[in-house]
């Protein structure tokens, strides 16, 4: 283990990697602070820039954006009451209330310090869990992968913030979009309509840029977030003794809970922050303080969302299964560089794996040093009117969409998915399951078809093998457990009708 950690340090301490780690967390913080452009769209934008880099350098830069954004998101939540990131929604509740009470400094301070502790915990968790999980995953064949991916998709749908049915529809649409292009097994053209640009399928970058970049801009313009009031008076960033006393356990609990929820498909930073807030409120002796400026309501969720970023890497690096949109993009980034995420990654590319882990640790330290002194700059950035910001965001999405393959066609694809993303949000269909369905669709199809070829068309292969059977049964139980409350509700309605 120590040799591996030293290898990680030797990779990260190379000047170029150190610089990229710094740039990644800085960009991450910036986009976390600014509402409108999330880490998904930013990673998609910078994805083509990383094509000329070594795989380790590319992943260090892109991962930095992800966890950097979690730090930045809290600043906007506390000072403006607008979450810079979905994962920072909960921080608005008590963070902004603290700021209104003149305690913006301790709120920002505990968010940054708690995030650092959580980031460290998640890096340790990743190191401890990744190696045994990879060894276990070496036993997986196509049926096991099919079971795992089905469970992953089910969890994504199950943990949907709105309607499970709509999330499932989104995921299925994503799986369908992944089918477009030439079939890898039979070389047949599928849904290409004879367009040469579609032979290689729909590209991930314009899809993500459209759904999360342009779609979000169109929605923000409609909602009109230009009139924002920023709390500019920030002093005493270091929390006092009482603040520490109140926050220590929430930070520890948030770190552990966040890490394990981050490992779950569909979990990630957003779910973790909500879960941590709920847990702290339930454990508190004075739950009425929550929503009125309780520092635990900032410390727990902020620790949880940062810890979840580390947890999200576990299934990606050990099983080759991305569990959220950002992981899906990192999965693609690794694949483009010829690095196959999965059980063999640690053995075949130790420099990538350990380099990434150590960069996350260093990145967290950089963020702590960087964030607190730069608060005044972030405050100034928040004063930029949205009328100036939105053309800039659109420009990034246009460049990002064009640059991956150098095709104007991809700009059209981005615009189409921008409209789709906008309409999906309006109609309460979540875009994240669509992206996950799109990314996992290819592997899901390949594992399903290969399994059926292995078994001469018998579906019992999935239930004859214990690991795939366990995954599929668990997925079924999840879906059934989700249907039970609906059935109960329906039975009650029927009973009422009969009584009447």
């Amino acid at each position, binding site marked *: 283990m120590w040799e591996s950690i030293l290898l990680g340090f030797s990779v990260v301490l190379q000047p170029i990697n150190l610089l990229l780690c710094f740039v990644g967390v800085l960009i991450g913080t910036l986009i976390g602070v600014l509402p409108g452009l999330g880490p998904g769209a930013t990673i998609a934008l910078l994805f083509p820039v990383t094509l000329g880099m070594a795989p380790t350098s590319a992943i260090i830069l892109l991962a930095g954006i992800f966890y950097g954004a979690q730090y930045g998101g809290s600043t906007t939540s506390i000072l403006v009451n607008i979450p810079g990131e979905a994962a920072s929604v909960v921080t608005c509740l008590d963070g902004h209330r603290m700021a209104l009470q003149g305690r913006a400094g301790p709120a920002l301070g505990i968010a940054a310090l708690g995030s650092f502790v959580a980031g460290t915990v998640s890096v340790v968790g990743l190191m401890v869990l990744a190696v045994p999980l990879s060894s276990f995953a070496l036993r997986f064949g196509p049926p096991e992968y099919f079971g795992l991916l089905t469970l992953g998709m089910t969890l994504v749908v199950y943990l949907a913030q709105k309607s499970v049915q709509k999330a499932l529809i989104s995921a299925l649409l994503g799986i369908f979009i992944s089918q477009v292009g030439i079939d890898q097994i039979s070389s047949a053209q599928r849904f290409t309509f004879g367009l040469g640009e579609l032979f290689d399928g729909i590209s991930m970058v314009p899809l993500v840029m459209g759904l999360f970049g342009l779609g979000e801009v169109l929605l923000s313009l409609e909602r009109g977030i230009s009139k924002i009031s920023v709390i500019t008076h920030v002093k005493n960033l270091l929390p006092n003794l009482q603040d520490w006393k109140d926050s220590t356990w929430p930070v520890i609990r948030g770190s552990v809970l966040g890490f394990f929820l981050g490992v779950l498909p569909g979990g990630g930073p957003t779910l973790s922050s909500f879960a941590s807030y709920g847990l702290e409120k339930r454990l508190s002796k004075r739950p009425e303080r929550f929503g009125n400026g309780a520092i635990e309501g900032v410390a727990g969720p902020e620790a949880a969302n940062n810890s979840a970023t580390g947890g999200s890497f576990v299934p990606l690096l050990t099983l080759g299964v991305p569990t959220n949109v950002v992981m899906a993009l990192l999965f693609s980034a690794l694949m483009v560089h010829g690095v196959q995420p999965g059980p063999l990654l640690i053995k075949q590319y130790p420099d990538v794996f350990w380099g990434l882990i150590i960069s996350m640790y260093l990145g967290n330290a950089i963020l702590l040093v960087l964030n607190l002194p730069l608060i005044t700059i972030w405050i100034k950035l928040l004063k930029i009117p949205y009328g*100036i910001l939105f053309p800039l965001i659109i420009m990034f999405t246009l460049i990002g969409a064009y640059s991956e393959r150098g095709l104007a066609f991809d700009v*059209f694809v981005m615009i189409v998915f921008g409209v789709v993303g906008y309409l999906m949000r309006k109609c309460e269909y979540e875009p994240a399951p669509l992206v996950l369905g799109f990314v996992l669709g290819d592997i899901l199809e390949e594992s399903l078809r290969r399994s059926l070829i292995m078994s001469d068309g018998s579906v019992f292969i999935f239930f004859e093998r214990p690991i795939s059977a366990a995954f599929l049964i668990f997925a079924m139980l999840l879906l059934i457990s989700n249907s039970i409350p609906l059935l109960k509700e329906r039975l009650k309605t029927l009973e009422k009708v009969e009584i009447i």
Partner: protein
Amino acid sequence: MREINIYTSFFIMIIALAICIGSLKLSIYTPRGPGPGFMSFGTGGILFLLSFHLFLKSLFSRTEGGAKDAYPKNIKTTSLILSALMFYALFLEKLGFILDSFLVFSFLFAISRTMKWYASIACSLSLALGSYVLFSVFLGIGLPRGMLNFFR
């Protein structure tokens, strides 16, 4: 939301049917195993069932709730932005990145009404030139030169 759900689920039902028909044209099952249309047929089938269920559920639902935010507002601005982007995509390779971006961003800044016209033009020009230098020169991303190719 009820009305919106009826429209969207009906639309998705049509898409799902189209996917199933398209998959039937590809081979669904071959003597060697599942064919290229196998997965898309299954996906289309489940999609149809789910959207049909949502359609029926919404049709017979009595609750309206949450419809206020569902219909698009500010359609004029949204349509103008989308038209500008379509123009951008259509003329990107002909006009080149700098000129195309300059025109589109001047337009976007104009509709945002955050600055005077001369400031919008200056901002768009510096944005188009600056992003070209950053992405094309420093980051090595190939952006089209179009009409300005003679500068080579």
